C-alpha cells in the first residue's frame, strides 16, 4: 500500500502561538505520495491550526514546510493551491446556484471574443470529474445534487490545477453512509493516482476504513504517528484522550451511587434523525446525572437538541414524565422545566448587546411572559445571587456580557438556566475553553443539583469530567449509541473501551 519513496510533503518543527495559547509546539508531519494520512485529535489539539499552516491560512512562527523536498512558504490559500496543496472543507464552499461546470472551473475558465467558452468549460469540468470516476450532467445547478456530490465537485475544483496534496477537512460530517462510501471510492482512486491525502475526521470507523497512517495530536503536541494496521482502536482513543489505558483503571471514583427514584424525567426511545444520530435510548430520573461520552461529532449535541425540542426526531419517541412530546418547540420545553445550555456560546448563548443581569434573567422573563416583568430590584437580586453562587467575576451585573471572560460568560449562561429551576438541565460542553477553577466549580454545581434531586445531562469531551460527574454514562460513536454504563461500571477505562470497541 505505502510506496517507499520520499515524502511528498514534510512539516518540521512547526510552532504556532496565538495570543495566550501555544496552538502548535514543534509538530512534525509527513505525507507520502499515494497514501491517506489521517490527522486526529480532540478539540484544541491543534489539528485545524496545522491544516491552516499547511494551506497558507496561517504562517508558522517557526519550522519549515517542504513540498517535494523544496522549502515552500504558502502565504495564502490560493498560493498553496498554486503550489499544489488543495483543501476541501466540511462545508461545501461553492455556489449552489451555479452549474456544476462553473463551480469546477469558474475563475480560470477559457474566454474568447464571445465571452466564456461554454463548451470548453464543460469539457474541462467533465474531465476533472472523470478523474474522480464521476459522470455527471455538468449543466445541472450544483444545489440540485446531493451534498456528497457537491463535496466531490469541491474536490474536482480543488484538483482542477495540478494538485499534489489534497487536504480533506472533515469532509464526511454531513454525509450519510452511502454518500461516505461514494466519497471514499473517489479518494481511493486519487490515491492510486499518486496524490497524498491528508484526512481529518472524527469518525473512527472511517479512519480505519480509509487511512494508511495515523498521526495524533494533543494539546498542540504530536503524540505520535502509526501505521493504521498497527494501532488498535483502544490505543488510538487513549492517545487522543491522553490517558494510558493501564493508568486509567478505577482511579477516578464514580459519583456516589445514589439510587435514583421516581418516574423518569425524560425517556428517549430509539430516537434519531435521517441525516444525524440513530437509535439513541436512555431515561433519566430525578437525582441522576447522565453523561454523554463520545468523540467530537459522535452525536451528543444532536441528541440534546432533540430532547430540548429544537429538532424533531424522524424516528423513535421522547417522553417527558411519561407523556410523549408532540410539539417540538423550545419555548414549550422551557415551560415544562427543560433547560439546554448550548455548546456554541457565541452563536447560541450570549446576547452580546445585553448586560450580564439581562442575560441571566432572560429565560425566566421569557417564561413569565412580557407583561409580568421582573422588577429591576428582583432582577438584580436574582442575578446577584446566582452570580455570587457561581462566582462570576467581575461581579459587575450592569456591564455588557461581552466584556466577561469565556469562563464567566459560561457561568452566566448556566445561571440563566438555574434561574428557572429546571427539572432537567442539559449542559453541552459547559467546560470548554474555560479555566480549571471554573471547570471545577461547574462540576461541583452539577453534583449539588443532583443531590437536591435535580436531573442533569452532562456532555463533555473531557472524559474525567464525565466520569466524575455522572451516575451513568451513555457512550456514542459515529452517531450511534454503543453502550450504557451505570453505577459501578462508570470508569474512564470502560468508557474509553466502549468508545473504541463498544456495540460491536
Amino acid at each position: 500500500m505505502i510506496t517507499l519513496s520520499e515524502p511528498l510533503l514534510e512539516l518540521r518543527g512547526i510552532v504556532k502561538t496565538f495570543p495566550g495559547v501555544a496552538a502548535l509546539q514543534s509538530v512534525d508531519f509527513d505525507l507520502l505520495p499515494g497514501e491517506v494520512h489521517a490527522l486526529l485529535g480532540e478539540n484544541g489539539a491543534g489539528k485545524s491550526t496545522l491544516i491552516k499552516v499547511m494551506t497558507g491560512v496561517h504562517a508558522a512562527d517557526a519550522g519549515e514546510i517542504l513540498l517535494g523536498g523544496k522549502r515552500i512558504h504558502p502565504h495564502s490559500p490560493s498560493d498553496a493551491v498554486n503550489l499544489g496543496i488543495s483543501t476541501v472543507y466540511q462545508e461545501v464552499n461553492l455556489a449552489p446556484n451555479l452549474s456544476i461546470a462553473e463551480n469546477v472551473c469558474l475563475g480560470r475558465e477559457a474566454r474568447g471574443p464571445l465571452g466564456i467558452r461554454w463548451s470548453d468549460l464543460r469539457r474541462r469540468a467533465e474531465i476533472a470529474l472523470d478523474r474522480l470516476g464521476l459522470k455527471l450532467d455538468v449543466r445541472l445547478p450544483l444545489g440540485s445534487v446531493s451534498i456528497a456530490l457537491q463535496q466531490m465537485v469541491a474536490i474536482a475544483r480543488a484538483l482542477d490545477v495540478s494538485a499534489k496534496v489534497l487536504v480533506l477537512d472533515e469532509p464526511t460530517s454531513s454525509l450519510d453512509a452511502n454518500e461516505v462510501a461514494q466519497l471514499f471510492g473517489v479518494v481511493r482512486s486519487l490515491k492510486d493516482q499518486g496524490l497524498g491525502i491528508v484526512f481529518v475526521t472524527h469518525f473512527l470507523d472511517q479512519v480505519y476504513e480509509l487511512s494508511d497512517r495515523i498521526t495524533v495530536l494533543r494539546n498542540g503536541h504530536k503524540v505520535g504517528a502509526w501505521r493504521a494496521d498497527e494501532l488498535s482502536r483502544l490505543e488510538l482513543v487513549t492517545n487522543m484522550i491522553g490517558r494510558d489505558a493501564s493508568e486509567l483503571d478505577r482511579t477516578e471514583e464514580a459519583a456516589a451511587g445514589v439510587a435514583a427514584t421516581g418516574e423518569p424525567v425524560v425517556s428517549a426511545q430509539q430516537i434519531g434523525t435521517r441525516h444525524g444520530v440513530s437509535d439513541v435510548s436512555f431515561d433519566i430520573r430525578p437525582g441522576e446525572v447522565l453523561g454523554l461520552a463520545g468523540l467530537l461529532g459522535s452525536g451528543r449535541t444532536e441528541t440534546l437538541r432533540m430532547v430540548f425540542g429544537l429538532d424533531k426526531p424522524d424516528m423513535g419517541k421522547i417522553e417527558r414524565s411519561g407523556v410523549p412530546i408532540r410539539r417540538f418547540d423550545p419555548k414549550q420545553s422551557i415551560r415544562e422545566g427543560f433547560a439546554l445550555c448550548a455548546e456554541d456560546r457565541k452563536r447560541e448563548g450570549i446576547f452580546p448587546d445585553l448586560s450580564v443581569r439581562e442575560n441571566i434573567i432572560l429565560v425566566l422573563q421569557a417564561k413569565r411572559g412580557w407583561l409580568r416583568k421582573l422588577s429591576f430590584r428582583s432582577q438584580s437580586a436574582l442575578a446577584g445571587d446566582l452570580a455570587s453562587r457561581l462566582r462570576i467575576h467581575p461581579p459587575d451585573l450592569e456591564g455588557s456580557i461581552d466584556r466577561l471572560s469565556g469562563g464567566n460568560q459560561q457561568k452566566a449562561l448556566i445561571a440563566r438556566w438555574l434561574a428557572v429551576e429546571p427539572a432537567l438541565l442539559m449542559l453541552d460542553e459547559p467546560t470548554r475553553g474555560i479555566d480549571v477553577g471554573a471547570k471545577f466549580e461547574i462540576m461541583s454545581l452539577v453534583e449539588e443539583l443532583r443531590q437536591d434531586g435535580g436531573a442533569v445531562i452532562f456532555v463533555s469531551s473531557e472524559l474525567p469530567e464525565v466520569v466524575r460527574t455522572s451516575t451513568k454514562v451513555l457512550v456514542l460513536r459515529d452517531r450511534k449509541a454503543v453502550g450504557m454504563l451505570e453505577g459501578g461500571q462508570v470508569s474512564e477505562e470502560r468508557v474509553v473501551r466502549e468508545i473504541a470497541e463498544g456495540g460491536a
Partner: protein
Amino acid sequence: MNRAALRERLPVLITAAVCVAMYVAVGLRFDKFFSLRVFFNLFSDNAFLGVIAIGTTFVILTGGIDLSIGSMMGCASIMAASLMQNGHWPAFAALSAALAFGALVGWCQGALVAFFRLPSFLITLAGLFFCRGVALRISQESVQIDNPLFNSLAGFQIQLPGRASITATSIVLFVVLIVCMFVARQTRFGRTIYAIGGSMASAELMGLKVRRTLIGAYTLSGLCAALGGAVFTLYTSSGDAISGTGLELDAIACVVIGGTLLSGGYGSVFGTLLGVLILGIVESAITFQGTLSSWWTKIVIGALLLMFMVVQKLIERAAARSR
C-alpha cells in the same frame, strides 16, 4: 428539461406566462391593442424604466439593493439638459458627463458596501438623497432642450408598417438588453455576480474577486440609472430634477416580477425585461380603459409583487425540503 433546471427557470417561466396572458387578455378586452404600433410603444414608452431595471438587476443578483436609481435618473436628466442648454455643451459631451456622474456615484456606493460591509439599502438610501439634492441644486425648473443634434437624435425612428416605429429610446433599450444579457451570461464578471448572490463567503473562498465585482455591479447600476435619465431626456426632450421619483420601486418591482430573487443568486436580465413589459401592459390597459386612474398601476404592481414574493418563498421552501 429535467426537474432541477425546470425549478430554476420556474419563476421566469411564470413571468413569461403572466406576460403573454396579460397581453392577450388586454388585447381581447380592447380593440386596437393588438397592433404593431401599440406593441412597439410598449418598448419606447418604458425604455427608461427598462434600462434602469436591467442595470439594477445586477445589484439585486448579488443580494443587495440599489435605492438611488430613481433620483440618479432625475439627476442625470437635469444634468444633461442643463449642460446642453445653460452650459452650451455639445450633446454627446453633456450626455457623457451625466453617464460618468452616474458611474462615479455607483462606484462610491459599491466601494462603501464592498469594503466596509455596510448594508446596501442604507448606503443607497443616502445616495437617493444625495442625487436628488444635487439634481435640485442644478435646477428646480424643468429645462427644455433645443440642441439640434440632440433633437435629431430624439426624433430618430425607424418606420415600420402600420404607423409603428422603433424610436431611438427603444434602440437604446435593446442595446442595453443585449449588452447586459451578454455580461450576465458570458463574462466572468457576470458569473461572479451570480456566485456572490449564491453565497458571498463561498465566492471568496473560491478565490473569486468579490469586492471588485460588487463595486462593478453598483457602478453598472449607477451607469444604467444615468443612462435611463438620458433616455428619459430623449423621450421628453427636457430635463427634470424631480423625474424618477419613486421609480426605484417600479424598477425593483420589475426585477422581482421578472423572477429575480431579492436574496440574490437567481434571476435573469431577460426576466427583468418581461417584468418591465408587464408593468407597461398594465399601464397601457389602464390608459385604454380610460376611466381607471393611474394609481391602479401601483396597486396592481404591488399585488403582482406580493404574488411573486410568495411564489418565490414557496419555491425556496420546496427546494430546502428536497435537499
